[in-house]
């Protein structure tokens, strides 16, 4: 039986209960809240894996701790763990994370995306591609690729 999927049996982790935000220290409604780790994780947790009907959170491709943010310096780094070492979908996943953050975060943000060290066979090559903005720009002018990315970013109907 040949199904063509790279990872036929991904591990799906139990869904974590979502924390309600109860931070009431800032009572001034006009001052923007600093963007924190959870807010950024909320933007990317529901991105669908390109191959399976599961989210990046379900598959532990991204976790809250995989987001490092420094709001004062408008910097974020997301470290994601592909489900398999030779996963050729790694660049697509990275691209989806970047596009979601580009669309969700203020323009002042500098975004770095990388695969978790040791989690992928061609880690350096993947990281280099994901962080070359000219390559990313050209890729996003490819309608087929954009369609694939938009599919992954569509909210699931649950």
């Amino acid at each position, binding site marked *: 039986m040949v199904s063509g999927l790279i990872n036929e049996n991904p591990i799906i982790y139990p869904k974590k209960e979502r924390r309600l935000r109860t931070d009431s220290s800032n009572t001034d409604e006009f001052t923007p809240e600093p963007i924190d780790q959870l807010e950024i994780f909320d933007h990317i947790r529901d991105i669908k894996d390109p191959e399976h009907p599961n989210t990046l959170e379900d598959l532990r491709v991204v976790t809250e701790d995989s987001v490092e943010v420094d709001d004062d310096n408008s910097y974020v780094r997301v470290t994601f763990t592909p489900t398999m070492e030779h996963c050729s979908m790694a660049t697509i996943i990275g691209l989806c994370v970047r596009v979601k953050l580009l669309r969700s975060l203020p*323009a*002042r943000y*500098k975004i770095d995306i990388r695969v978790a060290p040791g989690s992928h066979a061609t880690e350096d090559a993947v990281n*280099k591609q994901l*962080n*070359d*903005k*000219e*390559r990313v*720009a*050209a890729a996003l*002018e490819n309608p087929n690729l954009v369609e694939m990315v938009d599919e992954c970013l569509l909210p699931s109907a649950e």
Partner: protein
Amino acid sequence: MDLMEKNLELVEIQKLEGHTDRVWSVAWNPVSSHADGVSPILASCSGDNTVRIWEQSSLSRSWTCKTVLEETHTRTVRSCAWSPSGELLATASFDGTTGIWKNYGSDFECIATLEGHENEVKSVSWNASGSYLATCSRDKSVWIWEVLEGNEYECAAVLSEHTQDVKMVQWHPTMDVLFSCSYDDTIKVWWSQDCDGEFECVQTLGESNNGHSSTVWAISFNATGDKMVTCSDDRTLKIWGTDIARMQSGEEYVPWSHLCTLSGYHDRTIYSAHWSRDDIIASGAGDDAIRLFVDSHDSVDGLSYNLLLKKNKAHDNDVNCVQWSRGEGDRLLASASDDGMVKIWQVATKP
């Protein structure tokens, strides 16, 4: 007088709005400047698939958009370059083609389209005499085109020695020697022994030559052509030099060598570096800043450079290109950014 002793600042003269997407590059028309008695002209190219031509009015001194070159490229226009005569503008696009536009004063017409690259064209450069054009692409190749009579362009060479995406090509300012830099972290030098159009790679400047450890984004030569600066994703600028007199007189290629590395000044990728006629190196980086560097003239241990000034938040986003104007002594700098703006700056003494 030593520039470091003067109290200099980078003053924003004007912000040029109009592009509807990021601006990748700017290019000053070489034959128009205040010194020539002609209004300075600047071209900018963008992710909105167009090229805009900006001119400074001699009356009001303000810059306006004279023309928009559109409906030709179907994708991002990544870079543009004026021919030495100022009559032609070459435009390199992600659509895989290079456009050649003729300047008819108030209007531009696309007189030729160069095809051949397999995918995005990243950069285009004219040699000093305007007899050759070079282009490079993500297809890893560098093409040299011969400029013939009657708006004809003929491919003279397809050079395939880079192992990755080639980011920029730049002809030497005085000799027909071509330089290219790439995602493969190297700079390659292409030379034709008998000046017969047979170009070959005569040198590769990589990590083993004190070269860059990541993508090299740009190359710029000083006015005399004996030095060049390169900038990289490794967040350094590197200065290289050669014995230009020996090179110009002899039959032989004289190799380039590393002179100096400027590290610790940039926090993000450096996308552009440009060497002015009066020896100021400008850099544009992914931290939204423009930096100016000058020779420290501290020649005890060889060449060294000092940071003359840093302009934080020069733009609201990455600075993709910095270009000094060609005029003598006016110290005008143009910059292009992901924020969709082109800005004109002047180096001036603080009041």
